[in-house]
């Protein structure tokens, strides 16, 4: 995956994404929340707070215990057909 190329001054069509802010570093979090690289004029204090809140929410979670997500489909005919 490469970083998209932007043409300065050209209007961009924007799309919605969901981003896992709680697991990225501060710099990347700011970039994700802004949708671009920060500029000196950007007020990033509230973005840094959002990132800090997300990261804090992750750290308060219980430790992950690996579980097997495979579900026995039994005699599902459709699944048998796919196999």
């Amino acid at each position: 995956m490469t970083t998209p190329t932007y043409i300065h001054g050209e209007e961009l069509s924007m799309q919605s994404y969901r981003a896992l802010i709680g697991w990225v570093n501060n710099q990347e979090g700011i970039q994700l929340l802004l949708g671009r690289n920060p500029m000196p004029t950007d007020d990033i204090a509230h973005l840094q707070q959002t990132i800090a809140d997300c990261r804090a929410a992750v750290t308060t979670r219980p430790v992950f215990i690996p579980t097997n997500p495979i579900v026995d489909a039994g005699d599902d005919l459709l699944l048998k057909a796919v196999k």
Partner: protein
Amino acid sequence: MVNLREVLAFQKMINTEGLEARLAAARTSKERLFELCLPTNQPLPPSGAIVDQDGKGLTLSALNPNLRVVGNQVSDTQIPTAPNTPPLRVQALTFFVMMGSSYLVIVRYRDRYFVRDGYHRAVGLLHEGIDVVPCILLDAQNFEQDVVLSQPQAFLPYEVLYGERPPRLVDFWDDEVSQTVQRPAARKVIRIRADEFVVQG
């Protein structure tokens, strides 16, 4: 079948555009759900390309980010030159492009299960409350080659994924740890250009 609530995510973000339209059919029947997760018809790459004015370059693009170059081939071939003259023997330098597999793929590596392909669908299915879905399950031998497909820089790092609190797929919808963001729409573009050089020696 796999329970998507128990699966981890290594992709940092997912595009949520068009989710409802894409998942509308899957809600109606099990057959449609199977077709969404394990489609019988694979997406085809763009059928045309823009040719450079000098005939030495090709550009093709798609909204689907899975468009990619998957190989090349060097072979002998013949091309016609003019009527009533024998064809000219040339070397064909061919690049192959494809959209990638459109199956929902879950990969198991060191006792953890990740979505490898099909993030858009999988996250959308969770949003619709559809947790248990059919998928292709693979066992990975190598994290970089089999899990993140040699693009580790594009995804969350290994230390996070094998840390104490890795992100689950369902976390994309948890506002405590994830956010909706706006990003420029992007097209995947492949550009192939044949340049000629004279090199001394």
